[in-house]
C-alpha cells in the first residue's frame, strides 16, 4: 500500500475506498501547453473585439501572424445567405505599412488609417498580454502569483 493510499485511508477511515483519484490534479490545469494555432485563435478573439461589436452573422479575426505581418479577416452572410469574405494583410517593411487585399490590390496606408492601425496594434498587445498570457504589458511580469 502506497504512503499516499495509507494517508488517504487514515483521513477517510475507509479501507474499501481504494481510489485516490480525487487527490490527482485535474487535467485542465494551468500547466497545459497550447499549440500555436490555439494561441492564435485566443489572440484573435481578443483582436476581433478591438473594432467594436461584431454584427450578427459576421465572423471577424484580427491577429499578429509574425512581427511584420498582421491579418484582418471578416466573413459575413448576405441577404441571400451567401458567404462573402474579405482578408487584408498588413506588411510592415522599411517603407511603411503595406496593405494587401484580394485582387492584387496593395497600397501603403497613411494618415488616419495608419494611426488607427497603430493604436489597434497597441491595444492588441495590451489586451492579449493581459487576457491571454496574464502578463503586465508594461513590465512583462506575470499577473498570476
Amino acid at each position, binding site marked *: 500500500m502506497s504512503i499516499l493510499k495509507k494517508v488517504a485511508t487514515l483521513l477517510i477511515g475507509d479501507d474499501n475506498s481504494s481510489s485516490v483519484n480525487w487527490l490527482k490534479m485535474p487535467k485542465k490545469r*494551468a*500547466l497545459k*501547453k*497550447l*499549440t*500555436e494555432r490555439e*494561441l*492564435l485563435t485566443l*489572440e484573435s478573439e481578443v483582436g476581433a*473585439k*478591438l*473594432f*467594436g*461589436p461584431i454584427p450578427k452573422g459576421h465572423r471577424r479575426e484580427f491577429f*499578429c501572424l*509574425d*512581427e*511584420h505581418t*498582421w491579418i*484582418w479577416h*471578416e466573413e459575413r452572410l448576405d441577404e441571400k445567405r451567401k458567404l462573402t469574405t*474579405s482578408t*487584408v494583410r498588413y506588411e*510592415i517593411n522599411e517603407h*511603411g*505599412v503595406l*496593405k494587401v*487585399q*484580394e*485582387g492584387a*490590390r496593395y497600397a501603403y496606408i497613411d494618415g*488616419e*488609417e*495608419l*494611426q*488607427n*492601425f*497603430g*493604436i*489597434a*496594434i*497597441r*491595444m*492588441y*498587445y*495590451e*489586451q*492579449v*498580454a*493581459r487576457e*491571454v*498570457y*496574464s*502578463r503586465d*504589458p*508594461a513590465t*512583462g511580469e*506575470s*499577473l*498570476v502569483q
Partner: protein
Amino acid sequence: MAEQQHTSMYHVPASQEAVVVRSPEAFLSDIDLARKQALESASDMRSADPMDIDQSRIETSNRIESLLGKSTVAAAETIAPASPEVSFDPTNKDHFVEAGIRVLRMRAAKRDGFDLAA
C-alpha cells in the same frame, strides 16, 4: 466593395468603448495631459506620506479612466509607462514591429511551456 468594408472597420459606433472611438489626436493629447499631471503630482509628493502617494495613484488612475474611458485605461498605462521618455507612437512602424515581437515572445513561451502563468 472590399475596400469599403475594410475602411469601415475603423469607424466604430458611438456606443462602442474601444479606443478607436476617439480621434488619435484627442487620445494622445489626453494621455499627454494625464502623464504631465501624474508627473507633477509625483514630484510634489516625493516627501509626502506613503499613504498619500497611494491615494494620489488612485486619483490619477481615476482621472485617466474618466478622461479616456474604462477600456482605454490599460492602454494609457502602457503608453505612459513609469519611464515617461518611453512612449508609443501610433505612426511609428518600428513600434509596430516591437509590439509584434513582444506578442511572439509571449506566444512562444506559452507554446513551449515556459510560461506557466496563463
